[in-house]
């Protein structure tokens, strides 16, 4: 192991931070892939893999990915919700891996909702 210099330490910090930032629970964008029975049957796991691949390829470290159960609209699965911090969540339906790519380019990166794939903006009211 070569001896560290101050610049190396800073670089190491950036790299390690990318891998561990998730633990602090803070991110710019949160993506929820709906993985109820219906979602999984419709190919939700491939959508999840596509999302993770996008994050890796684009080298993003401010995007959190979580899963949830059935959203109640089983006929439109696979679904995912994209929530940019401070904005209303957007539900995307009938997803394919290609659509995920486009949504990443437009919404996650560009901040513009990919309206052609969106079902609705916002969520149901709970309680």
């Amino acid at each position: 192991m070569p001896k560290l210099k101050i610049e190396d330490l800073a670089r190491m910090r950036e790299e390690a931070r990318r891998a561990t930032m998730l633990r602090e629970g803070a991110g710019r964008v949160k993506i929820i892939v709906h993985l109820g029975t219906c979602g999984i049957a419709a190919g939700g796991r491939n959508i999840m893999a596509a999302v993770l691949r996008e994050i890796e390829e684009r080298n993003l470290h401010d995007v959190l990915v979580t899963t949830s159960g059935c959203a109640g609209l089983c006929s439109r699965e696979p679904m995912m919700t994209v929530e940019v911090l401070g904005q209303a969540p957007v539900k995307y339906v009938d997803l394919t891996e290609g659509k995920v790519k486009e949504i990443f380019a437009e919404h996650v990166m560009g901040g513009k909702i990919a309206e052609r794939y969106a079902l609705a903006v916002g969520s149901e009211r709970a309680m």
Partner: protein
Amino acid sequence: MPYRVHCMVCAGTGCVSNRSLDVRDALEKELRKRGLEHEVQIVTTGCNGFCAVGPLMVVQPDGIFYQQLTTKDVPQLVEEHFVKGRPVQRLMYTPPEAPAPIPKMSDIPFFKHQRLIALRNRGLVDPEKIEDYIARDGYQALVKALTQMTPDEIIEEITRAGLRGRGGAGFPTGVKWRKVREARGEPKYIICNGDEGDPGAFMDRSIFESDPHSVIEGMLIGARAIGARYGVVYIRNEYPLALERIQIAIQQAREYGLLGENILDSGLDFDISVTRGAGAFVCGEETALIASVEGRLGDPRARPPYPAESGLWGKPTCINNVETWANVPPIILNGWEWYSQIGTERSKGTKVFSLVGKVRNTGLVEVPMGITLRQLIYDIGGGIPGDKKFKAVQTGGPSGGCIPAGMMDQPIEYVAPDGKHEARDYLDLPIDYESLTEVGSMMGSGGLVVMDEDTCMVDVARFFLAFTQDESCGACAPCREGTKLMLDILTRITQGHGTMDDLRALEEIGWVVKQTSLCGLGKTAPNPVLTTLKYFRDEYIAHIEAHKCPAHVCRELNTYRIDPVICVERGHGCGVCRRECPEKAIFGEKNQPHRIDTTKCKKCGVCVDVCHFNAVIVE
């Protein structure tokens, strides 16, 4: 592919004893089985703090807190949470009296009221990976201290921050550093005192186990400030996990050139070695500890000269406690203004406590100085289990004292350091160095033992004195003879042979031992006796005059009888007590009331333990 979930599995000593590593292995296996091993990362962390409900795990980024996990829970957990995205309610924590489980760690009262500085990385880093520490700004304070600050500025920063020694005495850290810096003699040494010996205390152990690099970084900054070349970590051999993790951390720091020569090209040379202590309580005392590091018998010596002038190998030595060192990097990184905002006027920052005894949420907590005992025991600790009444809290271990709850609603007088009398409720006593000293106890290293109505205060005093008497090194007469005499008297009282004169003798001997002992062990050993005598004198008198132990702990003073009505109506004379009594002192037939022959009864109490119907009455 990046991980989308991090499972932070607690691998502190408490959770490991409860088989958290088995849970981790089961989790690993199950994730592989479901093909999720590239999406879900498992991280073993140091102590999370909420030891009462271990083995535990926090799932990030959502912060879901799972508790009391077993390997059997793992398949359901993986299926529901990681495959289907439905956190498992059954495995979450539900506070007593709460209607539903609390999913998020940050919403759980035990965590909500804490403020983490020394334990800032607990549960967030793998203590065996230096990269995890670096990701959390690790060694950035060192960079700042090496490139932007002179040694004097570092000492000034620590002084103005108001950091005081966390080992218990509360000596201002900056003042100590300045003394060592200005002392003549080379080389200078730095020692990390990890000889945590108080029964029920595990603060230092947890810092070593959860974030060892924070101690190393603190020592490096100290080395730059005082001009030290060598450091020693003194750690008890009974702490195998802590020992292993600090050794791994030192090795990693060496590999990266963060220990050794010309650190980060700054010209600083510093290296750390580890000395294992054999578990003598007196070695927590600084002069005894230094003797032990030098390979001699761990005997204390008279001060002055203080170690700052003549310490290890007769050279200037800066010795601080583990928690003190762990506090240094955040102070340097964030500045003294930030740190001095936390805490009270004279006690700045936070303190780590191990909360144990008769309290619901036992575990490790870090709270701002000045928090009241009530907040600590009720808001964080969750109160006393089983509808029992809170009686007292013991702070500072065998060197500390017992603070009563009996005066909870009745304000009492106490003398403030400025001489003014002030009315204050004990439980609302703010926790800082001075307040605790004023009521006859001390901060100590941070052990907090909560006691309920089933605790006999005379027995508690006897227990702690038996400990210090056993650990007394015998070098000076007051401690060697005084603690022995006091223990004899206390034992006599708990056996019902005490006299009222004994109380005066206890106080007299206690004061002499306090005033004349050589080192801190003897100077503080009488505290548990003196405080219980002060606040629980009626219990001593009950033992002496009525030959009764109000808490029914001192067995020699108890009498046992069987309530004939309960025995027959509820228990139908089941006879389990008759069969279990080792003295064959219980008589009776089935469906008939049983009775105890008090002439044969040796008062062992087995009958109480075995009776399912609470028919045995202790008086």
